[in-house]
């Protein structure tokens, strides 16, 4: 990517981006990166990791739940180097062609498998593994991951102490619930403890600006200092309360674990002397507010996705967090789309229950999902730093819980963009492991974890984030990274 001349950057301090409402809005250059002189130091932060997890698989070669073969409509035609021209040529027939503008930034990875077979509900089993590579508990819709997720690990290593990853959700179901109607958890705080999502974009926005500010430098540092002092005084009273409880010898291990987690979570407020100069456009904040606290309305789902993507980019640009996750959909994605005049529920189409048009409708949704991903890449490209666009200073990932609508756990798509400061390759379509779907029915069957389990992908991403890892996930899985992806 061409780097801008520092003088030009001084002149072009604002890049114009399009907000959710179509308004043309300006974003400032990242003040925290503004050099005092044209030859000022390069600011280097830990690479960020942003992950979008979609549901219901994609339309790729394989078989349906009914055993019918399906043609390839997702992956690029040819392996190896990706160019805009080649991806544009693929675009009429392959969903990944929607990302042609970013061909040279992409690392499209085929062949990643989930290592553990489903106990019943393959969607739940997939959710439990996709970011954990952990074994899963017995149970169907209520299976849980027996390990932490990658966002938890990266946040622990790279975020300010005590700052959770930003984990967002655009779907139909609120936290909690039983049986079928659950959001489908991909982020885990501890083994078997899913992390609750932030559903409402406005809640996430408030959480972020509560830490980094909202573009206005604090004028009253005295107020900030007093607030921090109050926080400390209160916490100085709270900590001994928990410590006294922990001294008891008659608590259960579960009681102790929960108290320890609570104790570790108590943090004093830090005085905010500066504010990020980056802002979310007022119009978008207004839209967030109108969605209310329970944004499960199908009518606003797509807008919620875009706002969450705005927030993910904002959160890493403003250094609120080094890692964020967005789950689109729930345990399944049952969002109702209208495409070519046909109204349908996505999950129904993914199971091909809507007749011959099912596969075309799913393919159309694949393109919609990748355009959401492209929107995120646009946002990250819009944030400029002295060393180039923010996009390349981390990795933005799109993946799916399943490989296909038939719940295959083999060839789960992973698309990466951004080299994480040169750690990852770029502009490549790579196949890891065998890259072939196993024959016959694969519904919820574990894939080839010996060669290309998702644990290796997670190790690779963690390493890219600056958290060296070769054994993330279940300890029985083969260690290592996907060296094919590393520059």
């Amino acid at each position, binding site marked *: 990517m061409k780097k801008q001349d520092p003088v030009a950057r001084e002149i072009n301090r604002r890049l114009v981006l399009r907000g959710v409402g179509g308004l043309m809005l300006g974003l400032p250059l990242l003040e925290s990166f503004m050099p005092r002189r044209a030859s000022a130091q390069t600011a280097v932060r830990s690479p960020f990791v942003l992950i979008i997890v979609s549901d219901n698989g994609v339309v790729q070669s394989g078989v349906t739940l009914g*055993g019918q073969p399906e043609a390839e409509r997702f992956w690029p035609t040819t392996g190896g180097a990706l160019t805009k021209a080649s991806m544009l040529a693929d675009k009429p027939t392959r969903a990944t062609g929607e990302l042609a503008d970013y061909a040279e930034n992409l690392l499209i990875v085929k062949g990643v498998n989930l290592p553990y077979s489903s106990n019943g509900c393959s969607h739940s089993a997939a959710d439990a593994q996709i970011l954990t590579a952990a074994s899963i508990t017995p149970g169907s819709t209520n299976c849980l991951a027996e390990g932490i997720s990658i966002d938890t690990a990266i946040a622990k290593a790279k975020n300010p102490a005590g700052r959770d990853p930003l984990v967002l959700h655009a779907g139909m179901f609120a*936290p909690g619930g039983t049986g079928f109607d659950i959001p489908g958890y991909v982020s885990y705080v501890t083994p078997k403890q899913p992390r609750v999502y932030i559903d409402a974009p406005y809640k996430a926005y408030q959480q972020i600006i509560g830490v980094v500010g909202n573009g206005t430098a604090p004028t009253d540092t005295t107020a900030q200092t007093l607030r921090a002092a109050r926080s400390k005084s209160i916490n100085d009273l709270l900590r001994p309360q928990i410590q006294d409880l922990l001294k008891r010898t008659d608590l259960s291990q579960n009681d102790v674990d929960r108290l320890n987690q609570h104790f570790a979570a108590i943090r004093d407020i830090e005085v905010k002397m500066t504010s990020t100069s980056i802002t979310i456009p007022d119009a978008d904040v207004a839209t967030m507010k109108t969605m209310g606290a329970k944004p499960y309305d199908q009518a606003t789902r797509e807008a919620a996705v875009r706002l969450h993507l705005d927030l993910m980019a904002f959160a890493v640009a403003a250094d609120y967090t080094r890692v964020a996750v967005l789950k689109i959909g729930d345990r399944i994605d049952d969002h109702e789309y209208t495409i070519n005049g046909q109204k349908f529920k996505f999950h129904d189409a993914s199971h091909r229950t809507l007749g011959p048009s099912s596969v075309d409708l799913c393919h159309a949704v694949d393109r919609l999902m990748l355009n959401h991903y492209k929107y995120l890449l646009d946002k990250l490209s819009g944030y400029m730093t002295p060393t180039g666009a923010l996009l390349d200073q981390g990795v933005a990932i799109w993946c799916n819980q399943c490989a296909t609508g038939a719940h295959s756990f083999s060839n789960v798509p992973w698309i990466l963009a951004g080299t994480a400061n040169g750690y990852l390759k770029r502009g490549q379509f790579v196949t890891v492991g065998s890259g072939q779907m196993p024959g016959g029915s694969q519904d919820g069957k574990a894939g080839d974890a010996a060669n290309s389990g998702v644990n290796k992908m997670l190790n690779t991403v963690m390493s890219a984030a600056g958290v060296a890892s070769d054994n993330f996930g279940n300890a029985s899985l083969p260690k290592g990274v996907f060296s094919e992806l590393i520059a």
Partner: protein
Amino acid sequence: MKRPLNPSSSMSWVAAGLACGALLAIGCTSASDNNTMPGGAAANPGTGSVTGGGGSASYAGSGGSGTAIPGSPPPSALVATPRLARLSRQQWSNTIRDLLQLTDISEIDQGVSGDALIGFDDQADALYVTEQLRQQLADASEKLADVVTADSAALARLVPAGAPADTAGKARAFITSFGLRAFRRPLTEAEITTHLGLFNQGGTLYPGVDPFKSGASLVLQAMLQSPHFLYRTELVAAAPGATKVPLNDYEVSAKLAFALTNTMPDEELFTAAAAGQLHDPAQVAAQARRLLDSTEGLSGVNNFNMQVYRLGTYDGITRDTQAFPDFTPATPQAMREEVLQLIDWIFSQGGSVKDFYTTPVAFVNKTLAPIYGVTAASDTFTKVELDPTQRSGLLTQAGFLSSYNKGDDPDIIHRGVFIATRLLCVTLPPPSPKATALIDLQPNMTNRERVEMTTGKGTCGETCHSNLFNPLGNAFENYDAIGKYRTVDHGKPVNAADVYRLDGELKSFSNGVELSHALAESKQLHACYTQNMMTYLHGRLLSSEDQPTVDYYAQLSRAGMISLRDLELAVVTSDAFLNRLP
């Protein structure tokens, strides 16, 4: 996470390993997350008495055949229970409202996330204070303190009458009184001193603010973030050599209140605790009855049933309004409200679980009236008696009938799966990988025929679908995709008759009304409901030690010998509820 009770032996024909055919994978509805059904002895209703841990009631039997129901419940088996139970999300909201005596906390409430739970919302082992939640609670406590201290009247409500006028004396009185309500027990002298120390920092940390307000704000924030507020605790010391430890009066008051009303103890409970009355089983029972008969008690009942019957998902019901002109934007909420009003009515009338599935009573407003074929002039819900040959309780209400639908036809499979898993606590085996999509609807093909051709005899779904849940869904083919009664489907007469193995025996039925009545008489249904209720009231998954108690009350429920109200009463006055292991 505790493992649920083991599958009933009456389901052995499933455990025999019959290859499960296709579970039609729409919605991936392959298994229950609920506890599975315990087996139960046959019930022989007869005259007997029910004794809980404290109160007692006598019930006249209604006759029957089989084993006689014991006159008293089995001894409570104490199991290891959490000593610290974090308030559930809803308990926190309700308690904040009641503790601070604020009518509207919605804006602050929205800033606090729910919990990533699978199961009832009050299961202590799964309720944590994470980094994110801790920060949200800290922010909320700050805002709540601001709201209270900005309003002199609001702050004055939290200061006891007769408090000294001087700031120091008033502070002590405030800390002592508010602290008792916040921690749900009297503060120790050390705790009072500590909080006074914090109070006295008010002048420094809120310069220029009224000394009492500034100190009170700090104390409010600290108490709302305290583990003694956020957790319901059972910490009374065990006597040396004790095999069981009675909860103390304040612990009983808190546990009763949260279980029955989903909020903190009220003043009467605090008074009873202060007077040492709550280690007397008779007094506990009296308080429990009072709570059950209160508005807050109904709220607690609703919270339980909202979760059992997944009423929260009704908001997501959508329909093609051209195909269903009687379905309006107001319909989903009305469907939910209808269920809650019916359950409230049954509860208040002293009804039982049976009534859920047998009563033709409904609560209808003008939004729902067209669906039921009645007239209603306003948005107010009015009690009506529907045609008992067409309507019989919850399963013939529009909400259940609409809530799983895909498209314009009733969802036989998911209606059936709901009944099997939610009402009968059946654990369904995993779906077959050969699961197929529904075949296309052909001319002159009914909805049932379509489903049977896809999953019935001769298909890979035959064993699972045909035996485990499709029949339960077939029974309701007289109700269309929004619950309107019909006798014709795609030009052909509706066939709602089928057979289902209930309590180990094949049971025939002609339609949904007959099935509803059969379910109401079944051991499985009553055991499942009892199990769910005990899980919820105890705030923990049940263990095998709880089995005899489940069996006993399920028998009474099935015999019509215990009302919903008395079922709750029995649980919360039991030894298992009022004591803990050392």
